[in-house]
């Protein structure tokens, strides 16, 4: 950490570097931010912008940027703030990290911070006629009652440009020209992906531009978490990406446990890992079913769901619920597994492994499927890194980004499994990555079953002294896990009380929608469906 401190001080003498936490925290003014960002990216190789977390420190508004170095997998936080609450402005980093496009729009939506140089400064999740900025500490909830009128001005956008003298002006613009044939796909659309709305400008059957409009399931989870205690907010982690419910909840538990310094018994961690992998298996089966159904092969959907019922039975017996299991808790798990758990898991693994061959026969080898997916929606490795596309979609482009391998958490470094990557980054590769990852999940589960059996069927499932009042020490706490769709991160800023100052969930699916326009341009409408199905996002994860 000291070398990083030295290098940064060399690059930008006005920056302050704090190395007391888990990762270096750099505080810099907005005037030097863009130059420092460029240097961090080009010279220190922090080429992935993992998250942009907007913050309201009451006296100042700003962002904390989380940067990752893809070769050393080290993390860096940079805090940039402004004290101007009437017209807060920061410089945008979209030109360096394209993923910042949607991230900064989210910060603008919630805090009102305008990013100079951003090409499309519009709200992200809230209605176009929304008044105020909800995540500010002085927001009044009564300022926005339920409105049943349709939104207006959907084509309006603007940019803020700075000239050589530092004067900032607003330039109006349009998302689509008036004479373009714009079709609405969604929000009510028959895919499981949920309520996503695309406005696609068409030229016959070819798509010229896709504007992604999200926010139709935005529920203000992050704001609600600011008024809840840590055990209470575990509930929401399961309702974002409900196909990675257990994994997300595990992430939150790990983060809080790290902050509290709690040691989780090994057995509890093993059980949580097994639940994670079962969840991943169930999620990939669903993604297979929905991808095939979107392409027209409806039967494959039923076959995938047939297997998922086996996994749901295991969840049902162990946790009491099929979905949204509420099983992990801070310190361990809520209850021990039942005595048939290992037998059930082994049985499920055997059945699913056998049926994977059937799925390949039904769909993967089909000439129509191959023609529809090969070469469609190519995402290059550089684009994947620029847009921070982690998870199976990123690995299909050749980027080794599995958090279980790069920053192992829980007990993953004790297990022997492969990170599945492909080269081309087209829809077929994204599909195949998931199919192969299912085999790896089964491999991990079998090893875990053996370990659990060897270590005894009954044992400690929760840490002995879990504090009743959980007060996290003041500071920044962060944890990243490999959820079914990519790297899911939990960022907590605490000031020592039972309720946090800020909680941010960095969802993998949010980055995925950033590449929809990139991959769908000059393809057909049918390809839009194929590409979004292969990217496989879950909308509540995007909108939170």
């Amino acid at each position, binding site marked *: 950490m000291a070398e990083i401190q030295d290098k940064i001080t060399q690059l930008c003498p006005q920056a302050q570097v704090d190395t007391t936490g888990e990762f270096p925290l750099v505080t810099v003014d907005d005037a030097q931010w863009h130059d420092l960002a460029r240097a961090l990216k080009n010279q220190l190789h922090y080429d992935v912008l993992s998250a942009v977390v907007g913050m309201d420190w009451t006296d100042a508004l700003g962002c904390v940027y989380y940067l990752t170095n893809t070769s050393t997998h080290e993390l860096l936080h940079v805090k940039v703030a402004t004290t101007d609450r009437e017209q807060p402005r920061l410089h945008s980093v979209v030109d360096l990290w394209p993923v910042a496009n949607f991230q900064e729009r989210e910060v603008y939506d919630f805090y009102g911070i305008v990013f100079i140089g951003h090409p499309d400064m519009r709200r992200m999740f809230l209605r176009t006629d929304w008044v105020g900025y909800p995540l500010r500490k002085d927001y009044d909830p009564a300022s926005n009652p339920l409105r049943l009128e349709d939104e207006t001005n959907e084509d309006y956008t603007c940019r803020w440009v700075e000239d050589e003298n530092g004067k900032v002006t607003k330039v109006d613009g349009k998302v689509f020209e008036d004479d373009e044939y714009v079709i609405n796909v969604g929000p009510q659309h028959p895919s499981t992906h949920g309520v996503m709305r695309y406005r696609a400008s068409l030229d016959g059957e070819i798509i010229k531009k896709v504007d992604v409009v999200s926010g139709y399931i935005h529920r203000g989870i992050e704001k609600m978490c600011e008024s809840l205690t840590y055990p209470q907010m575990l509930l929401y982690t399961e309702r974002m990406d409900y196909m990675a419910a257990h994994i997300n909840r595990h992430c939150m538990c790990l983060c809080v446990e790290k902050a509290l310094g709690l040691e989780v018994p090994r057995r509890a961690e093993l059980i949580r890992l097994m639940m994670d992998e079962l969840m991943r298996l169930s999620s990939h089966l669903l993604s297979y079913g929905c991808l095939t159904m979107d392409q027209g092969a409806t039967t494959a959907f039923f076959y995938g769901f047939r297997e998922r019922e086996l996994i749901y039975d295991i969840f049902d017996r162990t946790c009491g619920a099929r*979905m949204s299991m509420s099983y992990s808790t801070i310190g361990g798990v809520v209850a021990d597994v039942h005595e048939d758990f290992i037998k059930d898991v082994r049985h499920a693994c055997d059945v699913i492994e056998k049926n994977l061959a059937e799925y390949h026969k039904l769909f993967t080898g089909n000439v129509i499927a191959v023609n529809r997916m090969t070469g469609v929606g190519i995402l290059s490795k550089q684009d994947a890194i620029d847009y921070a596309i982690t998870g199976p979609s990123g690995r299909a482009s050749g980027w080794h980004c599995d958090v279980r391998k790069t920053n192992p958490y829980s007990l993953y470094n004790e297990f022997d499994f492969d990170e599945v990557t492909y080269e081309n980054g087209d829809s077929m590769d994204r599909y195949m990555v998931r199919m192969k990852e299912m085999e790896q999940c089964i491999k991990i589960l079998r090893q875990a079953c053996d370990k659990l059996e060897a270590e005894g069927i009954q044992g400690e499932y929760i840490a002995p002294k879990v504090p009743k009042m959980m007060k996290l020490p003041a500071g920044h706490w962060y944890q990243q896990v490999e959820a079914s769709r990519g790297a899911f991160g939990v960022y907590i800023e605490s000031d020592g009380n039972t309720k946090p100052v800020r909680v941010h969930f960095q969802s993998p699916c949010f980055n995925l929608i950033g590449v929809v326009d990139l991959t769908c341009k000059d393809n057909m409408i049918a390809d839009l469906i194929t590409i979004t199905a292969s990217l496989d996002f879950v909308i509540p994860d995007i909108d939170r």
Partner: protein
Amino acid sequence: MDFSIFGVQSTTLAITAALTGVLLVVGALVIAWLIGPRSYTEKKGEPFECGIPTRGDSMAQYHVGYYLFAILFLMFDVETVFLFPWAFRSGLCLEERSVEMEVKIKSMKHEDFKDNEYIDNLVEQLRAGGTNIIVGKLDQLMNWGVSNSLWPLCFGTSCCAIEFMCLGAARYDMARYGFEVARNSPRQADYIMCQGTINYRMAPALKRLYEQMAEPKYVIACGSCTVSGGPFKNSYCVVKGVDEIIPVDVYLPGCPPRPEAFFYALMQLQRKIKVQKYFGGVNRKEKLEGLKYVKEETK
């Protein structure tokens, strides 16, 4: 000169076949026009585009023949509308039958429905309403048909949608009830099952979709979020229960409800439909006056 069945010329029979086709369409349309309900709202007549108003025009110009045919149609329509109540008053369904106290659903006993009072109260109201309140054979037939063929609108916003998919999948198989034909267009769906939270941005879209559905239509509020806001009740942008926007027929709590609970809710909806008064109740025909649709300026 090809002679065919009965020794009649083939061309004559071909013309007969064509006329039969026309007769089929006309006959079915007449039946539907007579017995079906009619209601008008501004959004119902707008084109469907997934709950969002259309941007710009979809079509270029109108056909002049539209006016002529509209007038002809109106003439015949008014005549048949006047004929229908005469036919009914003259004795088609005037048998006085006492309303059955138990509204049975196949293989589920009356006691197993946990809220018998609601349906029983409905039945009491129907009985107490007056001498003309009857559930005749025709009503029963219509209600049987409607309750056994409920087509949902694909509308899943959040987690409950996954349980709905499990409901349609092989283990639970809602196709056994005939519900698997999930239509994507609200014009062709019978009920909308709101699965998942509705927030302030989605609310206008949901309202538009509901209004674009064809009568008779029903709503099932599925999951705690749609019943009351659920776990997101304290949020700044979540509708606290979908009944703030659209009228709800069945409330199904749970987070998410199990597929068995879904079946229970659907069977409750079936019971409710079996008790409804179809002729004179559900098939009300509203008039178009009073609702002036202002022609949109092309954007």
